[in-house]
């Protein structure tokens, strides 16, 4: 377009004969200069293309020449000087912490990022921010690994060949200039959900300039249902923000509110505040969970029912009707719901008007949300336990409809320019849209993303996107409060953020992300930033949240939906199975598929890693003749996928759950071809549940890599629990069930160490642990724990220092699920220490069971002799010592272990040392709270307490002295420092079963006569015997 013109003007202006080889040369465009530069380099060439012979020679020569001059990056050609004055705050060896946010579906989760000498190594929640309060779930903490993923896109490319960003800018400018004539009619911008005010502003500016251009948001697992539910109930989009702390009774309708959605960290913290018996004065809340598949949150519910989605919806209608909501359609209590159960629920809810809350699942049909809103209104909860706020999204839209419109336009040839800023629609768009086919007719397709993924493959241009930790930005958290996101590191590969690309499109390329965000907020007005912008800005950066940016509560929200609307059946009874789509609890919608930490995270409950599965209840599977690991074919209206079956106790019968986010073709070395892609059966019409699905066996087998294979306690009192009434009657019930009593301290040695300095200990509150695995990833990140891969997990060699055990009790079709986090117990009489032949594991004077890696020869005797099986062995060379970027993610305070060495939880000894140094510098003892271990920091429910047992005022000392405190396997007299607080449930009196063991301390009898749960053992064993060794770990 511009080229011939420029060339012609050159020929016109240059006198005499001139030879030219191409129009580009003639025009002497900057592109061509760039090209020349690359073709005939005058400086060192860019080392970006794959190794060629020539480059190899160059590299060899250079590395010989530079031997001894080692650094992270190539030395600059420019003159450099050492520090004359050291930069403020940078002290080698000391970490700095920056407040920023990481995103999930566009929503900000405020975090603190630990940075060592300019490289971020660890993400933890921002303790100051109400939306996180210090916690960070696994998916948030794992994003630091994404930053250093060696598979990230490193260069701008066009049709696979390397280009420069300037070339792209010029191409874009030309195209946009051309389309300016018709108001940008053929221009479409496709983003993920946007809550960022600055980005939204740029999008607005663009559409002002090109009024016919359109902005489409698409997120396969966004808050569509919540939005649609609010629309149905209130006629306008609002976000329901819970005040969970005020709720005495919670009814969860398929809601995993402690791990999903913008508020999950806040809700988990709030829930925990009502259950922290170690704090004394709490009135426990009571949770009813009705869900189709077992959720993390549901494991804490007092009363849990597993209903398939159609019945669940009917149940919701029945409950609403019982609460006085006018509901059309079938609203009688489903037969699957016991009458006593239903009555207890209704009684509890009615008795707690204004102090109860009904929550619907993020990924449940909109009707359920509407019914939840109606119930909350009927119970007077609106404004009390539920606040309605303006949506977080800058522009809430029906993303399903928008995406359909976009593909229709594309197919119709109406779209010339498609800018995909983030997201991966080729992978995750509903199949009937035939997104790839529609893309064929688009003249210019650009993809901005961190990885060269499925979508990039079909685009002309690919621009590497800067990671969240590399770019300036802003985003809204739970209540709308904005976090200004500050980069922790310069883009490793020169990436750009969506904000920068939008600015480029708006013709302001010179501005950096920093300028763009600042400039936006400068214009936000005195109402937000006050008189002194600089002060406001600095506080916003420092604190991790910007003052005065909370979204207003929407006044006067009233349910306008009529009975017919509430009675709309979204899941018709249609024979066959009901299939439930859920995001994966680690790889989410597929975006974390190339993250090893996430792929190897044992999924809550199932402990499945490196795969997705068709999750059936054991009974349904038995009825179908399907066993664990049998590959079944799921037929959804003619589209089929084949998935291995996984038996999931607590799953609703006659239904099956599948997880999105697997089967990626172009995720990277880690994520390619892991699991099965189920997007091809997820249609626009039924993105959450689809009825009438046929499942047939294929005769094939696929082994599932689960880290736990036996889910029965075998009558052992490992997890102890009681009802509130039992606890009140006998507060020491947990200790009472011990065979020999916890206090027996029998030793053949006279010598007893006093531990009169610090005496570290940990307490794990089983009332609070929901098994979300945030701690596991936090530990992995903090302690440089390697990823071992599916094959090694199948062999039983996962390396996590901390694991969350899952046991089932009760009715096999609807068992109670018990979670038990198990780190190293740091036994005072540690059986591992006694058997180590080289004293590689020894006790320190503060009670830590220490591992001396250098001394370890790897006999594994310690692991064999550990009754808790918390020791992990480097059977092979698991640590990647060669990939440069992965070296950067490691915590420099923690040794990276070699093959052949044992490792295990150290109680984050590096954090203890850090606190000790600081305390010594300040001439004092380490105070309670100075040492926050990684798992403790991450825990959304504060289930983990750590500290000095000798400090009688410390939290841990109080927890250890609490009547609920007990030591697992205390009868072995190993004297563990890590102890548990028995779980106390608060069931409705009419539904309460006895949970605590009989009150006489030797109730079990000498020969292991039934302890609690034995009856269940026999009951479950028939149905779940398949599970006793399901995973068949090698």
């Amino acid at each position, binding site marked *: 377009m511009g080229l011939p013109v420029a060339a012609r003007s050159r020929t016109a202006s240059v006198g005499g004969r001139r030879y030219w080889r191409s129009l580009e040369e003639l025009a002497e465009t900057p592109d061509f200069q760039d090209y020349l530069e690359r073709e005939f380099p005058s400086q060192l060439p860019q080392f970006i293309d794959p190794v060629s012979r020539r480059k190899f020679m160059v590299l060899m020569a250079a590395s010989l020449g530079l031997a001894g001059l080692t650094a992270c990056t190539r030395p600059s050609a420019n003159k450099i000087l050492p520090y004359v004055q050291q930069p403020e705050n940078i002290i080698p060896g000391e970490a700095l912490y920056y407040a920023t946010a990481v995103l999930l579906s566009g929503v900000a989760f405020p975090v603190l990022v630990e940075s060592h000498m300019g490289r971020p190594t660890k993400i933890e929640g921002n303790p100051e921010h109400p939306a996180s309060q210090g916690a960070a779930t696994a998916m948030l903490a794992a994003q630091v690994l994404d930053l250093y993923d060696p598979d990230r896109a490193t260069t701008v490319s066009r049709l696979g060949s390397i280009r420069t960003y300037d070339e792209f800018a010029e191409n874009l400018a030309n195209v946009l200039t051309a389309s300016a004539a018709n108001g940008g009619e053929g221009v479409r911008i496709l983003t993920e959900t946007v809550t960022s005010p600055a980005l939204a502003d740029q999008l607005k500016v663009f559409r002002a300039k090109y009024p016919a251009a359109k902005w489409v948001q698409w997120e396969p697992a966004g808050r569509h249902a919540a939005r649609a539910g609010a629309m149905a109930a209130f006629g306008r989009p609002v976000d329901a923000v819970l005040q969970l702390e005020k709720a005495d009774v919670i009814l969860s309708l398929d809601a995993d509110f402690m791990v999903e959605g913008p508020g999950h960290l806040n809700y988990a913290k709030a829930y925990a505040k009502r259950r922290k018996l170690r704090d004394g004065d709490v009135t426990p809340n009571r949770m009813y969970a009705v869900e189709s598949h077992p959720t993390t949150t549901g494991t804490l519910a007092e009363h849990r029912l597993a209903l398939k989605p159609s019945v669940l919806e009917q149940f919701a209608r029945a409950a609403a009707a019982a609460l006085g909501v006018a509901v059309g359609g079938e609203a009688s209590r489903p037969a699957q719901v016991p009458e006593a159960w239903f009555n207890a629920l209704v009684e509890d809810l009615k008795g707690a008007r204004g102090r109860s809350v009904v929550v619907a699942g993020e990924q449940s049909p909109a009707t359920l949300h509407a019914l939840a809103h109606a119930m909350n209104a009927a119970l007077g909860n609106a404004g009390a336990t539920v606040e309605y706020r303006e949506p977080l999204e800058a522009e809430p839209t029906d993303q399903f409809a928008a995406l359909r419109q976009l593909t229709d336009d594309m197919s119709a040839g109406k779209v010339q320019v498609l800018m995909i800023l983030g997201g991966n629609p080729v992978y995750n768009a509903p199949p009937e849209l035939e997104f790839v086919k529609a893309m064929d007719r688009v003249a210019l397709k650009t993809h901005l993303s961190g990885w060269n993924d499925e979508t990039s493959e079909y685009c002309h241009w690919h621009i590497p996107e800067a990671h969240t930790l590399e770019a300036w930005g802003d985003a809204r958290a739970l209540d709308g409060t904005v976090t200004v996101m500050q980069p922790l590191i310069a883009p490793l590969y020169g990436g750009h953020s969506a904000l920068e690309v939008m600015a480029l499109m708006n013709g302001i390329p010179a501005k950096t992300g920093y300028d763009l965000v600042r400039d936006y907020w400068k214009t936000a007005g005195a109402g937000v930033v006050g008189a002194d912008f600089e002060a406001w800005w600095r506080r916003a950066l420092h604190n991790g949240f910007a003052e005065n940016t909370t979204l207003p509560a929407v006044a006067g929200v009233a349910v306008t939906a009529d009975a017919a609307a509430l009675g709309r059946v979204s899941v018709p009874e249609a024979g066959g199975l009901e299939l439930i789509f859920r995001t994966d609890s680690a790889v989410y919608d597929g975006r974390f598929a190339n993250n090893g930490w996430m792929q190897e995270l044992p999924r809550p409950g199932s402990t499945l890693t490196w795969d997705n599965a068709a999750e059936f209840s054991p009974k349904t599977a038995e009825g179908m003749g399907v066993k664990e690991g049998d590959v079944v074919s799921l037929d959804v209206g003619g589209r089929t996928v084949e998935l291995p079956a996984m038996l999931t106790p607590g799953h609703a019968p006659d239904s099956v759950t599948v997880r999105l986010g697997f089967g990626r073709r172009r995720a990277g070395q880690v994520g390619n071809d892991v699991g099965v892609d189920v997007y091809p059966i997820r249609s626009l019409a039924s993105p959450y549940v689809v009825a009438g699905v046929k499942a047939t066996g294929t005769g094939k087998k696929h082994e599932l890599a689960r880290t736990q294979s036996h889910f029965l306690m*075998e009558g052992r009192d490992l997890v102890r629990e009681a009802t509130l009434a039992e606890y009140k009657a006998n507060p020491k019930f947990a200790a009472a069930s011990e065979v020999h009593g916890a206090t027996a301290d029998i030793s053949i040695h006279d010598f007893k160490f006093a531990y009169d300095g610090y005496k570290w200990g940990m307490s794990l509150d089983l009332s609070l642990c929901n098994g979300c695995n945030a701690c596991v990833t936090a530990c992995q990140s903090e302690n440089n724990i390697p990823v071992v891969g599916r094959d090694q997990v199948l062999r039983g060699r996962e390396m996590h220092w901390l694991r969350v055990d899952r046991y089932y009790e009760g009715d096999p079709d609807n068992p109670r699920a018990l979670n038990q986090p198990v780190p190293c117990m740091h036994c005072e009489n540690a059986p591992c220490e006694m058997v180590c032949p080289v004293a590689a594991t020894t006790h320190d004077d503060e009670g830590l069971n220490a591992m001396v890696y250098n001394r*370890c020869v790897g006999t594994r005797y310690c692991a064999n002799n550990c009754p808790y099986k918390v020791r992990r062995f480097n059977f092979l060379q698991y640590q990647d010592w060669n990939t440069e970027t992965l070296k950067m993610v490691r915590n420099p305070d923690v040794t990276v272990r070699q093959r052949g060495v044992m490792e295990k939880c150290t109680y984050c000894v590096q954090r203890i040392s850090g606190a000790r140094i600081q305390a010594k510098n300040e001439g004092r003892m380490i105070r309670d709270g100075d040492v926050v271990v990684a798992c403790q920091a991450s825990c959304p429910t504060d289930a983990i307490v750590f500290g000095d047992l000798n400090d009688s005022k410390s939290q841990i000392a109080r927890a250890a002295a609490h009547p609920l405190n007990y030591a697992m396997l205390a009868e072995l007299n190993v004297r563990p420092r890590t102890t548990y607080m028995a779980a106390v449930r608060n069931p409705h009196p009419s539904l309460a079963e006895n949970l605590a063991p009989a009150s006489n301390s030797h109730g079990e009898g000498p020969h292991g006569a039934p302890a609690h749960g034995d009856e269940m053992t026999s009951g479950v064993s028939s149905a779940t015997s398949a599970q006793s060794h399901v995973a068949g770990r090698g």
Partner: protein
Amino acid sequence: MSLSPEQVAEQRAIGNDRENAPVMAPGYTMESVTETIAGIPLSKNIRMGWAVGFLIAFGGMNLLLLSIVWLLYRGVGIWGINSPVGWGFAIINFVWWVGIGHAGTLISAILLLLRQQWRMSINRFAEAMTIFAVSCAGLFPLLHTGRPWMAYYLFPYPSTSGMWPQFRSPLVWDVFAVSTYATVSIVFWYVGLVPDLGTMRDRAKNKLVKFLTGMLALGWRGSARHWHRYEMASLLLAGLATPLVVSVHTVVSYDFAVGLIPGWHVTLFPPYFVAGAIFSGFAMVITLAIPIRWYFGLEGLVTLRHMENMAKVLLATGMCVAYGYSMEVFFGWYSASRYEEYLVFNNRMLGPYGWSYWMLILCNVISVQVLWFRWVRTNMFALFILSIIINVGMWLERFVIVITSLHADYLPSSWGMYYPTFWDIAMFIGTIGFFLTSMFLFVRAVPMISIFELRTLLPQARVKEVEK
């Protein structure tokens, strides 16, 4: 004066007399005993059967070398071990091989002290077997470590770091027990060889053999003074080795008994392990003796008397082992510990590895009962098969102890299965190859029966005594 083929046939027939075999068939002379035994290593011929057997065994040994190279290159992850089963074939094989060694020491030391003359025909190769078995055993503790190149940390040596081994660990005791055992066994065996090496030196026609045996014979001239010192040394070494018969496997059993894992934490283990060791050792001696005496025509020297005596030892130790098994079950019940109870009944007997337990009972308890019948004790084919069954059974016993106990201990959440890999099996077969290669070389290069001791069994020797 060598024996005529008819005489040899007759002596073999007497040695194979199932009713009344003597310790040595009549008709041997000083000369013919020496000729028969020393003739085998001094012969120039390489017999076909020996060569084929040797090559097969040598192939096995090369598999061992290959396994070791791969192991050192990749790490112990090439095996099937995992968490919770941190010890697998390596430790099973270690205990199995150490156990096998015990028969040699028992025969040469305890039976010497007890003046059992029948031991003289079998002690030499039983001792050789001990040394080779202990060599095989010794490989495993070294190679099963994650970082074998650091294994010297297990030895007490003055190090700049001031670190000593951790003496409370049974693995350190193991280091001492097994290295002492290996040393004493080798010295005992070599000392016993010296008079025969002298004989070899005197009879060898090949200069090299003469030179080598001459060096190794340490100037043995057979003087009375030499014999006196020899007898003293033997007695002293026997006295040293005798406690080792008991102590080595006792210490090996501590590897388990000191642990707190159900199935390991059993006070019965030391005597039960020792009995098991002798049981498996005698089984291995029988496995080796039957083909050797047949192939080399030594039935007149290793007679059915020997075989039957060994079979009786098998029966006796087999009953000890059976007592051990029954006591394990009793303890499991009597402990009143739900973990022990679960281990014995739900796990060992009925768990996923239940087959190994019942196979073990079949091999080591039930099948051994046929030894009550003389017909079986004197039927070499039946005895050979039975000895193989017992070898398998004793291997399974260690499998049950190591794998079944570890795979399901205290926390059901951590239970997992162990499956051996190709390299587990390759390494095991490899050590068998190494063991057999050594045995093949031994029977070809060294008098496999003590010549001078057998000479003392001859009537001539006794006549002299009487005359004196």
